[in-house]
């Protein structure tokens, strides 16, 4: 069961989220829909992210793979270097650098798709509200028995409209 409330002010939506969370709803149960990014004060609906970590990890992985591959390829087919080292980081550092950055780019994009939920299997039956420009829609997933409480909390916080929908 889902309860959806429409708000015209960010502060009222934040108040509804606080009340719902105090009533037991988790951040995973809550979704805020808007036509533009909405920033709530810290602690209201934080979404911790590992994107930076994933980006750095992707960079390191690609960098190591590229270096390893170049090292192996240079030794696989040995060219005459006149006594100079077969593998020289000075001469191949640019490729390592570019591949490191490519790793960061690919990892960031892949994690964006994952973290945003765009590339994750999701509950197709979950209702997605049509959001009017300037409005904010708050959707909460709850048990059927708790929907009345959730709807009341939204109305008390200042929702201009509340509706209950089955999943």
């Amino acid at each position, binding site marked *: 069961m889902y309860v959806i409330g429409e708000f015209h002010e*960010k502060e009222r939506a934040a108040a509804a989220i606080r009340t719902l969370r105090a009533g037991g709803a988790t951040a995973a149960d809550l979704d805020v829909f808007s036509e533009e990014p*909405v920033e709530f004060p810290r602690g209201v609906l934080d979404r911790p*992210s590992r994107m930076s970590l994933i980006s750095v990890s992707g960079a390191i992985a690609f960098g190591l793979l590229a270096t390893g591959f170049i090292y192996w390829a240079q030794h696989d087919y040995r060219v005459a270097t006149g006594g100079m080292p077969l593998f020289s980081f000075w001469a191949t550092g640019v490729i390592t650098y570019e591949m490191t950055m*490519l790793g960061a780019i*690919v990892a960031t994009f892949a994690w964006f798709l994952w*973290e945003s*939920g*765009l590339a994750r299997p999701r509950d197709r039956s979950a209702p*997605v509200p049509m959001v009017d*420009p300037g409005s904010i829609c708050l959707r909460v997933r709850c048990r059927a028995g708790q929907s009345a409480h959730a709807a009341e909390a939204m109305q008390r916080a200042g929702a201009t409209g509340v509706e209950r929908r089955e999943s």
Partner: protein
Amino acid sequence: MAPAPELLPYQRIREDLFRPLSRVSRRYVLATVCAFVVGAAGLAAWAYQLRRGMGVTGLQRPVFWGFYIVDFVFWIGISHAGTLISAILRLTDAAWRKPVTRAAEAITVFALMIGGMFPIIHLGRAWLFFWLLPYPNSRLLWPNFRSPLLWDLTAIVTYVTGSIIYLYLPLIPDVAQLAEHNTPWRRKLYRALSLGWTGSDREWHALERAMKLMACIILAVAVSVHTVVAWDFAMAVAPMWHSTIFGPYFVAGAIFSGIAALLIVMSLLRKVLHLETYLTPHHFRNLGKLLLLMSLLWLYFTMSENLTVWYGNEPKEMAVFGARTRAQYAPYFWIMVVLNFVIPFVLLGIRRLRTIANTTIAAVCVVVGMWLERFVIVVPTLANPRLPAAASSYAPTWVEIAITAATFAAMAMLYMIFAKLFPIIAVWEFKPHPPEDE
């Protein structure tokens, strides 16, 4: 006076920015057909070159790098318009960037696509381009990872990938909106591109984080790409190429030509798509100032590069210096100085003259001047090698000229198609924002 765009009602912004997507005027069709014809002529010229061999070009010993490499460096430079400028403005949170960024990012992607074609055209046997790729093959050979040309390949692949993603990410919310009301085939296209975007806070948070990270990464990549292009020259022990400042010199030149290209595109979009309310004199003034700054920086680098050569008086270097400034290539050199410095300095330095029209004129001069700069860097050095007996000259043939002209047409055509498929200004970034909490 037109109201500031942020204060316009959202519905009006949406209508203004989505309107150009649904209307196709006769002029638009005519311009697209013209660009297509010039592009097709270039393709025909390339087909002729593939059939007859590289002998149909003006390339001959010792000048093996001519128009194609000039075009390559030029277009890679133009590509710095977008991603780099957009990333700098995004990271510094410059509010005036909003109508500028997408136009700039699109330039990057198309310029890279065009620039990336030239090494393949220059190969002669273009069908063997895959020999550049490291794959297990019957000859048991690997590409030479020590070669600056392979550095180039990896740098450009990274930059193209990053630039496409950087253009695509902020496009997702807009295509999701476009998917709601449109013709069936467009709806299919936009739905596929929007990946099921719903506008939830998870999506917005992930998008904003990704954009910030991508801006940081792309800055580092953009600087490296043009540095690597510069090293294609600087790593050769050739007169007036073997220079330690070539990397920053090329990066500065790339940003310079990139800003100029962006100004030209903005000026055209403003006129053609009636975006006067969004692309205001304020944007042209700010970018004009940036162009002036880059013009001065370019002059500084050009002076440093040439003065040290002249003062050193090394005979081989002086032969190239003389060819550039006093002999065969002097007209190109001095026209370049006028176009890249004198005209922009007058038009942008005097406040009264800093109008949209004059800024656009200065930008056109800079684009032409920067193409000449690439020519003046590439050709005189090769025409005056260390062996005096090998000195020669270079004149392009109609094949090279046709292919060069086709790249400009291709740029125009790609941009016109893009502007008809996607809003050229990020609509979601333009909505009236409520005041943020502390």
